[in-house]
């Protein structure tokens, strides 16, 4: 694989959920959870995906994994389109793309031992003999900071941070090239969050992993990401290298989001951009720019024409008529 080829490329990803009135009724309305999202992730890169609750960021992660079926769009994993693969084909590709879930409690089967949980992916793909699998599980336990003798314990005997380490070990077992983290630390205590984040970064260096890191905590995202994408109502409004996004955000929504991050120094004050109103319903997204209903700088054009996501030469892309600094190609 050439270094320039992205590990994961997503083009025009759409996921609509139909609201069904009854068992046999036809879908009357569509929730546009994800409405045309495109991005790519290079080998060894972490893309942070942020946005407030309900903006569709978790759905993007699940649609990429085909844990939910995308309505439209294309997901390319290591140069291969996986959107049209059948069940068996998709199972085979899961070796290369793994996931860490948000909730370390419900994502582990309470009836299986920790060792069985981490061994299961190896069993599914018939990797090695039973003895080799046990050795690999022991090595994975050691790598994520669990004691090998904890293999016979059940999930409820672990703490939240330890359970998330189990989830990481399970994701690592198959030797994937990319791991989708669906808010992998948001259910953990702050001190434990740092441990898990650091573990993920160490593993990235060691195995050359790529991450799609879905989160709503901007501090965490700033720490782990190389590039950051901001989502609003099912669309990416800004995507940029970390430093550019955090130091000179261009989209008014990103500005508002960043101004809401608490400042660590008590005397330090930050100019707060407060948004009016609520997020519109994803069933009926506003026409034109989806953010115009709450945008402090909106002009009449915003209500009519949807701004395209345009990148400038530095790779800083913004979907805003007024702030986008790229000329339409």
């Amino acid at each position, binding site marked *: 694989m050439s270094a320039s080829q992205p590990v994961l490329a997503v083009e025009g990803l759409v996921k609509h959920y139909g609201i069904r009135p009854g*068992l*046999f009724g036809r879908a009357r309305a569509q929730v546009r959870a994800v409405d045309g999202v495109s991005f790519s992730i290079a080998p060894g890169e972490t893309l942070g995906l942020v946005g407030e609750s309900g903006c569709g960021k978790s759905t993007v992660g*699940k649609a990429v*994994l085909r*844990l939910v079926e995308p309505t439209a769009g294309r997901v390319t994993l290591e140069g291969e389109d996986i959107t049209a693969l059948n069940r068996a084909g998709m*199972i*085979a590709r*899961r*070796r290369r793309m*793994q*996931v860490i*879930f948000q*909730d370390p409690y*419900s*994502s*582990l*089967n*309470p*009836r*299986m031992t920790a060792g069985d949980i981490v061994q*299961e*992916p190896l*069993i*599914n*793909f018939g990797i090695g003999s039973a003895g080799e699998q046990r050795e690999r599980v022991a090595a994975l336990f050691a790598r994520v*900071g*669990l*004691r090998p003798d904890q293999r016979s314990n059940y999930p*409820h*005997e672990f*703490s939240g941070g*330890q359970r998330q*380490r189990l*989830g990481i070990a*399970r*994701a690592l*077992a*198959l030797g994937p090239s990319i791991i989708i983290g669906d808010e992998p630390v948001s259910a953990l205590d702050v001190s434990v969050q740092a*441990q898990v984040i*650091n*573990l993920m970064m*160490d593993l990235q260096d060691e195995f050359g992993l790529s991450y799609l890191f879905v989160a709503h905590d901007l501090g965490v995202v700033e720490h782990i990401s190389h590039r950051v994408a901001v989502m609003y109502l099912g669309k990416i409004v800004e995507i940029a290298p970390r430093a550019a996004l955090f130091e000179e955000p261009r989209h008014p929504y990103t500005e508002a989001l960043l101004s809401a991050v608490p400042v660590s120094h008590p005397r330090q004050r930050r100019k707060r951009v407060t948004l009016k109103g609520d997020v519109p319903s994803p069933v009926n997204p506003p026409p034109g720019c989806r953010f115009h209903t709450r945008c402090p700088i909106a002009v009449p054009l915003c209500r009519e024409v949807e701004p395209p996501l345009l990148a400038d030469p530095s790779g800083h892309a913004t979907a805003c008529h007024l702030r986008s600094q790229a000329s339409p190609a």
Partner: protein
Amino acid sequence: MSATTLPAVAAPRSRPGLLRRFRRYPLPSIGAILLLALVVSALAAPWIAPHDPFEMNVVDRLVPPGADYTFGTDAYGRDIFSRTLHGGRVSLFIGVSVAIASTAIGLLIGVVAGYFRMADAILMRVMDGLMAIPGILLAIALMSLTRASIWVVIVAITIPEVPRVVRLVRAVVLTVREQVYIEAATAIGTRFPRLMWRHILPNTVAPLIVQATYIAASAVLVESYLSFLGVGTPPEVPSWGNIIAEGRLYVQIAFWNILFPSIFLALMVLSINVLGDGLRDMLDPRLARRL
């Protein structure tokens, strides 16, 4: 990052002893012991019964309970004690058969209904239909179509029980399939058979065991009243229902004809139900954690 320095939590995971379980669940334990005694007496009936349950004795008709005949004799001079012990075999066989058959069939249909959306609507309407059939009418209909046999009784009792199991299993499958660990299993490439076997079905075991005990108790009872009504076990078989039905004619002069088989019937149904309640409490994960 430094290695985890979390202290080793070496929890002693000894299984709670038999005595401790007994103290914690006294009533279910008594139920289990009582049921065990009834089961052993039924299984050992050919060896421990003092008389042949079919042997008639014209001289010793309607003899009251006493030294020769512990529970007295019936109108044909047959020993009630021996007949009651043998009757336990019939009741037990029917109870266990119905419990196994209805849980097995119900599990299969319930899993399909719970997992496959398309099959769900159709299967559940059929189950609703089956639930609407009264067991007695079904038994009478089956008896009039075929000749009386224990197997027909088992089928007649099993059919109305199946929908209850189906509903239970379907509910469990519907809940479990939405769990994140099912999604996680899919993400690591788990194929359908293993997903079912390792992740979904284990959750149905505890409620099914409990349901099976209730079904067994109910089947024992239903067999008795079907036999009592003359649409159950063939009259020559000494089931508890048959003994009670025959004894009914002489209840005013020989009450022991119905008293003893009735006591056995009541004790068996009671002990199974008490055991089932106890199992429900023991197998409930929320309660089990405190054990």
